[in-house]
């Protein structure tokens, strides 16, 4: 495994604002006193405040027609194909414990042992995302608009897995659908101190979880602005976070901060955790759209995948979780573990769309009663992981055969 240079992303600059001691009541004073005032040209901004609800969220992959540029070698195999390669139907009468269950061991207790299979990564120069470290490094991408220094190593992991590819991607589609259909995922973004949706120097950006459904168009595919939302102050306190931002030429940009947000899939409450995350959203009076970039905590990310989707579900989109984990570890590029030096996070980007909503005043009043909020933390992974040597002992004869064939 090629050892990548570990880069400590500009930790010193990152304002970690998860709210261990944040007094939420302060947000009320940010919204100004005149609730009837509106920003010119944007009637949905009331007293310097406008809010949005998340309507779609996707890991940002940059795709070319038929994958000719991004995945010229094709896409990766999934669990079904890998199982067939490891254990061909040769009439040997294999035991479930030695095959199926041992593969599940590898999925649930993953290691950085070399993969049995060659992992295919995108080869093109372009990717969506943000320049998270302010530098242009050899492994960075260039945005489709020509911006250099794009940090999105997660794209290298996901870009040639069918499950994350537009149109045919199971995860890409299902995960985004659940953002809307599942109330657990109702992420709200509230901007306070807005003097203009074109330019505002000092904007407080609050993240909440909402409690109410979204208004959709008659066909259920679009979203109507103007709905009302309550803030989940009972179970959603971990998701109440404050960021600092500014609006320049209609684009909201936030300063890097660690951000946790809910992303449950298939009825299991799971979350994502991005370190040094920034929002870059194009704003209108009725919508917001753009990118969320940051360093995805790998263990939290993998836990979200594994607990949300069984190997069966993963096989729909040819997503082999064990191979994916190894690639994430290999391509990780941020937040090295102080003890081991291994990077714990991987640069990433999400495409997000929002529709404008109003947060009910009584809900804000409830918020003011909360004195201290619990700080969200990433998952630290299985407490007693398997070792590389242990995994190397699994199917040793098969490993030798596959390696030789490769």
């Amino acid at each position, binding site marked *: 495994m090629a050892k990548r240079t570990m880069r400590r992303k500009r930790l010193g600059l990152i304002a970690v604002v998860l709210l261990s001691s944040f007094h939420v009541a302060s947000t009320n004073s940010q919204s100004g006193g005149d609730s009837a005032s509106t920003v010119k040209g944007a009637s949905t901004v009331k007293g310097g405040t406008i809010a949005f609800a998340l309507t779609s969220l996707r890991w940002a992959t940059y795709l070319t027609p038929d994958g000719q540029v991004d995945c010229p070698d094709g896409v990766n195999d*999934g*669990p*079904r194909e890998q*199982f067939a390669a490891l254990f061909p*139907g040769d009439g040997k*009468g*294999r*035991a*479930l*414990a030695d*095959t*199926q*269950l*041992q*593969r*599940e*061991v590898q999925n*649930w*207790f993953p290691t950085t042992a070399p993969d049995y299979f060659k992992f295919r990564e995108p080869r093109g120069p372009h990717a969506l995302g943000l320049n998270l470290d302010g530098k242009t490094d050899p492994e960075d991408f260039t945005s489709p608009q020509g911006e250099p220094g794009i940090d999105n190593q997660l794209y290298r992991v996901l870009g040639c897995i069918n499950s994350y590819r537009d149109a045919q991607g199971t995860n890409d589609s299902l995960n985004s659908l659940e953002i809307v259909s*599942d109330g*657990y995922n109702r992420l709200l973004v509230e901007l306070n101190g807005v003097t203009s949706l074109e330019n505002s120097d000092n904007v407080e950006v609050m993240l909440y979880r909402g*409690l*109410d*459904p979204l208004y959709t168009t008659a066909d259920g595919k679009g979203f109507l602005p103007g709905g009302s939302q309550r803030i989940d*102050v*009972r*179970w*959603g306190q*971990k998701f109440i976070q404050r960021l600092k931002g500014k609006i320049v030429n209609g684009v909201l940009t936030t300063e890097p901060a660690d951000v946790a947000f*809910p992303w*449950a899939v*298939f*009825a*299991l*409450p*799971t*979350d994502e955790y991005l370190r040094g995350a920034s929002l870059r959203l194009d704003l209108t009076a009725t919508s917001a759209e753009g990118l969320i970039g940051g360093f995805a905590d790998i263990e939290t990310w993998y836990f979200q995948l*594994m*607990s*949300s*989707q*069984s*190997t*069966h579900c993963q*096989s729909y989109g040819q997503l082999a979780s064990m191979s994916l984990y190894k690639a994430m570890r290999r391509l990780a590029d941020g937040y090295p573990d102080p003890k081991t030096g291994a990077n714990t996070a991987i640069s990433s980007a999400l495409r997000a769309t929002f529709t404008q909503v109003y947060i009910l005043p*009584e*809900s804000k*009043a*409830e918020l003011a*009663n909360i004195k201290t909020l*619990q700080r969200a*933390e990433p*998952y*630290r*992974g*299985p*407490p*007693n992981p*398997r070792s590389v040597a*242990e995994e190397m002992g699994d199917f040793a004869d098969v490993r030798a055969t596959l390696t030789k064939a490769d």
Partner: protein
Amino acid sequence: MPRGVGLLAACIVATLACSPLRADDNPKEVSRAVPLPPGVRVEATELDGPVFADPAGKTLYRWPLRQLRNGQAGDRAGSSECTDVPSVVSAGLMSPYPGGLKLPDLDERLACTQMWPPFLADADAQPVGKWSTIKRKDGSLQWAYEGLPVYTSYLDQLPGDVFGGRADKRGGDTPAMRAPIGPPPDVPPGFAVKTMSTGRLLVTDKGRSVYASDRDTPQKSNCDATCADTWVPLLGPAYSVVPQGSARGEWSLIERSAGIKQWAYRGQPLYEYRLDTGSNGFRGSDVPGWHNVYTQRAPSPPPGFTVQDTTAGQVLADQHGKTIYTYFCGDDSQDQLGCDHPRQEQAYRLVVCGGGDPERCLQTFPYVPAAQDAKPTSRSWSVMTIDPRTGRSVDAQHPGALRVWAYRDRPVYTYAGDRRPGDTFANGHGEFRGLRNGFRAFWLRDDFFNQDQPGPG
């Protein structure tokens, strides 16, 4: 909703006193009288309400046909698929793994009929009500309910035990499970009863929770028009009468105003909460003075357990605040037999809790220890002794045996990866999101996903 704030503040202290769990001295659910075969009786249970039982009091179950990922398993009306020949290979009913793989521990594997003895009928048995008989392949007669053959479970020991399966349907990728059968609850049209981990919850026939107010007095609503904007009275037909057969007179109709009648249960006028967003909601109970209505409450956990808030609701936790987990397992044989009980196959559990290593399993998913003087607090909560190396139940004198707490006759666990109260990082750990070979948190309340139903089986 400012009205909820007071309770919220009070409930930050995570103790059972502040939880959805209540004392055990509550009345039991009443069922409707139905025709029964000779010897069959109705038995009260702690979690599943009234069930049918054989003459010895053992709960009766069915195994309904169920569509799985790659085929079907279970009984069709009129015949039994449960045989006395043990399965030897997997059926491949759950993808992506193929069938034909040799099942674990074949030398110890039981046949379906050993785990699910058919409830046999006398040769001259006659159909009665929804009961009939089917002829098994060996010529014996087996009782059937609504056409499906009926069994007992080898796990049930005493009357009222329901350790073989659960009453409510569980969806997703769970095995084709056996479910206890029983008489319908004695509720009027428009109501139903749902089995939750906290008790048998009264809901409407659309699944919405039913609430009662402490401000009401017996047979009288004090919820005025403003109140009724939020708390919707559950109205009955103007000329309706209370259901016949309510031996304890638990249902009545009160008159809100001339000609407008409202249902009351055990004297309490009933309402829906307008702000409940889904089925089986508990959000109304956050409003001081309002609470969900149960036909019977589940037994409280033993002393020392706590309740913790999560991002989706509340979970049961140990004395240190660590979330409690239960283990679910059903194999992929054509029999769809359980593997989540310490009398059953442990190979599956050892894989997901420790990568096949019993020691790692103990460190990662430790049992919840019971003190030497700990006593079972109910049939649902018991103390059992486990050989930690094998995961099998053993007698107390067995060398190295652990005394551990068990729920529904299966050990409960914590997860070493949970660091703070309210963490649920092992919820869904294992195959099929924890529903086939894995762990699920012990949910007492789930405002989003309806996970708050009682454990495995």
